[in-house]
């Protein structure tokens, strides 16, 4: 615990960069590290050149830039986005189990996206729109259900869980009534995948995450005070329920944008913030920083596992995160009960 935050920060940044490079080299075709490094950092301007001057094979160049990097960066962004929303939701609700799933945000976004995919088209822009609408629907439903008691965290959480189940039921219903081909597309989509990611898909999640992070950092002290208790935060002059609502909406937007791109990926938003707090304590700006580096690189590795664990087949990412997540919690629970540090 005596290691200073700046060292942890530097190490975690290094680890993230390393993760991206290693992940880029691993796949059905193994690209040597040196080629990846040269391709990414030395001759990134030479995309499309048949044989670049810095000695990167054109095939490798194509694999790295057109197939792997967009996928890996999307994984990175997804990990970052889900982790920071999880951290914020846990803080503003003071509930260690809070994440976009618990609040029904993910379920709402998934429903919106599934409706769009099964009825209109698979174009990314309309899926994103559907996911945003679904996310908005879930937040509105949750607030309506909680009614006047929306100022109480417990009521908010319970109505979030209720909304989550209700919207998931609708999603399942749609899948059930779809023709087999659409159903399998939907199912695969719902379990999460980065495989279809292209460069053009990256800007929207990137913007959402950057705006979100900026606002989270600006409001970090207020959020920290809410984390300590609503009434105490009130006495410090903080508009508690308005801030919580604003954060909820912001988290919904980030989640919806991500769900639209990559489908449903659970456990990351729940698990990563806890690991981060375990490493750097509970100061929000530190937790957020670690969520960016650790959450991002975790997702990159999950994607690597999903691609390599089975020969010639890509596993849905959601399955990998859930498997790792449950295992992780089991380990944490075991060590916690021994050291009693909770």
């Amino acid at each position: 615990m005596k290691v200073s935050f700046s060292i942890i920060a530097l190490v975690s940044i290094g680890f993230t960069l390393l993760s991206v490079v290693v992940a880029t080299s691993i796949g059905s075709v193994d690209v040597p590290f040196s080629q990846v490094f040269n391709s990414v950092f030395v001759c990134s301007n030479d995309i499309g050149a048949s044989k670049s001057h810095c000695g990167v094979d054109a095939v490798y160049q194509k694999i790295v830039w057109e197939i792997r990097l967009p996928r890996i960066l999307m994984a990175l962004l997804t990990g970052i986005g889900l982790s920071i929303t999880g951290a914020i939701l846990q803080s503003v609700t003071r509930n260690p189990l809070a994440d976009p799933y618990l609040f029904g945000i993910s379920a709402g976004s998934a429903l919106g996206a599934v409706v769009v995919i099964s009825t209109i088209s698979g174009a990314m822009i309309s899926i994103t729109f559907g996911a945003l609408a679904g996310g908005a629907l879930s937040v509105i439903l949750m607030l309506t259900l909680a009614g006047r008691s929306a100022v109480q965290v417990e009521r908010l959480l319970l109505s979030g869980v209720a909304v989550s189940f209700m919207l998931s039921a609708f999603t399942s219903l749609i899948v059930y009534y779809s023709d087999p081909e659409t159903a399998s597309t939907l199912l695969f989509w719902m379990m999460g995948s980065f495989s279809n990611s292209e460069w053009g898909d990256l800007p929207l999640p990137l913007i959402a995450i950057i705006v979100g992070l900026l606002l989270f950092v600006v409001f970090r002290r207020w959020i920290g005070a809410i984390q300590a208790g609503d009434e105490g935060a009130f006495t410090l002059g903080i508009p508690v329920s308005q801030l919580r609502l604003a954060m909820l909406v912001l988290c919904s937007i980030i989640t919806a944008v991500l769900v639209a791109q990559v489908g449903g990926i659970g456990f990351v938003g729940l698990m990563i913030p806890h690991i981060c707090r375990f490493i750097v304590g509970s100061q929000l700006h530190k937790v957020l920083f670690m969520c960016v580096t650790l959450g991002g690189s975790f997702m990159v590795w999950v994607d690597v596992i999903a691609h390599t664990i089975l020969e010639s087949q890509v596993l849905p990412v959601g399955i990998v995160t859930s498997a790792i997540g449950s295992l992780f919690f089991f380990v944490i629970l075991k060590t916690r009960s021994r050291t009693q540090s909770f």
Partner: protein
Amino acid sequence: MSQHPLHLPADSNQLDVTDSIFIADQISWQVDELRILDSLSFEVKRNEFLGFIGPNGAGKSSLLRCLFGKNSISTGSLSFNQRAINQYSRRELAQQIAVLIQEPPTQFEMSVFDVVAMGLIPNRPLFSFSTQEDKQTITHALEKVELLNKAQNAFNTLSGGEKQRVMVARAIVQDPKVLILDEPTNHLDIQHQIDVLQLAKEMNITVLLSIHDLNMAAAFCDRLILMKEGRIITSGEPDSVLTRDNLEYVFSIRAQVDSHPFHSGKRITYDFSPDTQIKKSIISPKDISELGAEK
């Protein structure tokens, strides 16, 4: 003594206007149909140490919550520094009034330092970096409550008394004109009770607190307001409020009130023996009028 700005006297120009920092005129507070506070009128003098006493459910906490703006009064008028309390923004109130409440424990480990640092929130812009000066303010406050050695400990691992002292340190950092404490001595051993009240007193600002220990109230408070069932029964200096008859009426308990051997105030001794316990349905002026109404 530390050099903290708190130890300077309150704004002298405000002192010229009036002596009262709070003026409550016929204030009531109700939840739906239930009237919790019923037509209370009182004033709070600047820099006095004012205690609210009375049985559980008398409305002490509800009243304190009105005073820091958490409960908005249903009827009547409540002014703070000659301005209606509902005309202040939440932040403006937080800059002048610090509140010690007992928060339920949180699942997230926060360091003592971070908890105290929250006291800076009302007086800092939303986005700012913590400065060396901020750090010094927090260190001074922790020094004052003798917890500097535990600055990096997790708040959750502290004892009840230490937690309460941390909250006092946070209030010191907040640099308020008024300190409101809701039953600050609950669950504390006698030494910590005295510590907390002493620290509050040493802040030399207006202190409002609800308190159950009548002997503590007698020893520390300049003035007491005695409440029962949402009404003020009487108020005044401890000597005039803590009388045998008042205690019998409000708490339904027989007590002996005499001079305290160690200080100039009163000492209250309770009679626990079962045969002398007063029936709850003690006849009071109010009860008599209700009896009359039934017939």
